[in-house]
């Protein structure tokens, strides 16, 4: 199942990539594969911006804007003038997660 096309912020810098393969391991949607020693994006529209790849790329070859991606979290952010976030602070009732 796929969401919208051409919206995600995923970027792969071929120069910085060393082909270590961490992105292939951590991505839950098989967005990457290693081809001739470098990572390649197969179908970028499979990306859900979870951020696992960029977090685990120690060479800084991958960037993506990840964050709370649920509608209620985004609404929360808009209403409070902040970045999207669940309204769960420490010890507060968290209704979404």
């Amino acid at each position, binding site marked *: 199942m796929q969401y919208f096309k051409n919206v*995600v912020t995923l970027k792969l810098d071929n120069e910085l990539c060393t082909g270590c393969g961490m992105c292939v391991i951590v991505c839950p949607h098989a967005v990457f594969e290693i081809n001739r020693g470098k990572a390649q994006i197969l179908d970028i529209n499979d990306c*859900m*911006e*979870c951020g696992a790849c960029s977090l685990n790329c120690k060479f800084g070859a991958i960037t993506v804007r990840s964050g709370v991606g649920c*509608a209620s979290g985004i609404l929360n952010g808009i209403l409070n003038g902040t970045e999207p976030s669940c309204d769960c602070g420490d010890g507060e009732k968290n209704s979404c*997660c």
Partner: protein
Amino acid sequence: MAISLNIKSLKPVVFSVPAVSTKLEFSDLIGALKVRFGIGRNNYTITPGLYKVGNPDSHSDVLVSANYKLSFDMLRKNLSLLNIWILVIDTKGINVWCAAGKGNFGTNNVVKSIRNSSLEHIVKHRNIILPQLSASGVAAHKVKEQTGFRVIFGPIQAKDIKTFIEAGYKATPAMRKITFPMKERAKLIPVDFMYAKYKLLLIMCLFFIFSGLDRTGFLFAKMVETGLSPVIDILGAFIGGIIVAVLFLPWIPFRAFALKGAFWGLVSTILLNRLFDVPVLEAIGMGLTSISIASFMTMNFTGSSTYTSLSGVQKEMKWAIPIQIAFVVVGSILFIISKLI
């Protein structure tokens, strides 16, 4: 032979690691059922720390888990006949993937937990196995730098752990890919419905009361006689948006969740319209309201889905929310007008 020992460098290790069974009890199943319905969901936790399954020794594997009891139970029931350590980290009772996204199942927390558990004194090896879905919160190389422990990301599903370990900590591509079949979607519906129950009741009450509006003011008898129809419409919209749209998620060709919801809201209002004989203006008013409600509820499901991106949800909400607001406002106004004329 003199052994020089710096007493101050010794660190006492308390070796009373609780053992957990790999068999779930009836109470565990009941607990799981309850949290699926949102009951006690904020408090379904286990104490963070080190646990053991079977009889692990200093060569046994270490698995890392969230302290949401449902996650922990799902893990341990797949570990029968293994001798394994389980390091449970404090994710405030939240499941692995959500906790990773929010930062609780994160690098710092894992590092802290490894240190607090004195893991380096318990196992000789320096490997820990983390669930793959924690990767959006845990930077493997940073954990290694700070603790000396190498993070191995295990399969997404606990049921594949045994096979993964037997294959030499190798996962097949299928083990690393998340799927979202109807069965998994269905599991998420009850809690979504329960969280919406107060909104549902509120809107049903409002429209029930509005049905009593009349050009002469408010008529109690009119409310009782005509109030059922809008209430059923609203219930139908909620069911369409939370249950039906989610169950049949990929069947509706639109990519936007708001459109999938709107579709079922429309279907619901058309079907229910056959049950009651209402004036056209009221039917249109309730129709718009139903579409808006169903659309909003399905759009909300993006937070529980496994494949929507933040960028996509923001794009969707930009146009969906103004339309949803417009529909519900216009729909309510038309409904009220239909009562007043």
